[in-house]
C-alpha cells in the first residue's frame, strides 16, 4: 500500500506536466480531488451502513458506519484545507462563500455533530440509532455538494479540461488513495468490532 501511494506521489511530481497558468501549485488538485472524492463516498457509505443498522439493529453495521464516517471526516477536513490553499493561489483568497465550499463546510459540520452526539451516548444501540439518523439525514448534503457549482453557478471549477497525462495521473492517484483509505477504514472497523467484543467479555467478569 505504501509503495502504491509513493508511486502516486512520484507520478504527481514527475509524470504530470506543469500547468501553464498556476504552475507548481496546480499539483494540489491531485490531492484535493482524491480526498474530496473519498470524503463524499465515505459519507454515502456511512449513511448506507447507518440505514442498514436501522433496519436490522445489528451493531456490526454501526461499526462500519462509524469507521466510514471517521475516514470521511478526515478526508473532508483535508478537502477544506487543500481547497483553501489552492484557492489562495487561484482566487487570491483563503475562503469564499462559493456554493460548493459552503455545502462542503455544512457536510463537515454535520459529521462533526455526528461524532459529538455519539460521544455523548453510552448505551451502544442508542448511540448507533442516533448516529444512523444523523448520517442518513446528513448524506442528503452529498448530492448538493456534487451539483452545487452547476445548480448555483459558483466559481469552483467543474471538471476542468486537462491534458491526457494529467488525467491519467489523477486517475491513478484517485485509485491509490481510494484503496489506501478503504484499507484504513477496514482496519478501523475491525478494531471497533474487537473493542465491542472485549467490552462484552469484560462485562461478563465485572457486570457492575
Amino acid at each position, binding site marked *: 500500500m505504501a509503495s502504491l501511494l509513493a508511486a502516486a506521489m512520484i507520478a504527481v511530481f514527475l509524470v504530470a506536466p506543469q500547468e501553464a497558468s498556476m504552475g507548481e501549485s496546480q499539483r494540489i488538485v491531485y490531492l484535493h480531488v482524491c480526498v474530496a472524492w473519498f470524503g463524499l463516498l465515505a459519507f454515502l457509505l456511512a449513511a448506507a451502513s447507518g440505514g442498514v443498522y436501522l433496519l436490522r439493529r445489528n451493531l456490526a453495521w454501526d461499526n462500519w458506519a462509524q469507521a466510514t464516517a471517521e475516514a470521511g471526516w478526515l478526508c473532508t477536513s483535508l478537502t477544506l484545507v487543500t481547497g483553501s490553499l489552492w484557492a489562495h493561489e487561484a482566487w487570491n483568497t483563503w475562503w469564499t462563500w462559493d456554493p460548493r465550499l459552503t455545502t462542503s463546510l455544512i457536510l463537515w459540520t454535520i459529521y462533526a455533530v455526528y461524532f459529538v452526539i455519539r460521544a455523548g451516548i453510552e448505551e451502544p444501540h442508542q448511540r448507533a440509532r442516533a448516529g444512523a439518523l444523523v448520517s442518513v439525514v446528513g448524506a442528503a448534503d452529498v448530492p448538493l455538494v456534487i451539483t452545487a457549482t452547476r445548480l448555483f453557478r459558483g466559481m469552483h471549477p467543474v471538471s476542468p479540461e486537462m491534458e491526457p497525462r494529467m488525467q491519467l495521473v489523477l486517475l491513478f492517484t484517485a485509485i491509490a488513495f481510494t484503496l489506501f483509505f478503504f484499507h484504513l477504514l477496514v482496519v478501523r472497523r475491525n*478494531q471497533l468490532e474487537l473493542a465491542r467484543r472485549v467490552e462484552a467479555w469484560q462485562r461478563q467478569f465485572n457486570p457492575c
Partner: protein
Amino acid sequence: MDVLVAAFASVWVAVALYVGWLDRNQRRLAARLEALSAASQSTDGEKSNLANAA
C-alpha cells in the same frame, strides 16, 4: 510553492496522525484482551481484579 508544500504536508501529517492513533488503539485493545484472557484462566477473586485492571 509554499502553498504546495503546505497542502502536501497537511495531508501526510493528518494521515500519519490517524494511522498512529489506529496503531495506539490496536495496542491498547491487545493489552486489554491479554488481561482478560489471563483473568479467564485465574481464580474467581483474581478474575475481578484483572477485569478491573483491563
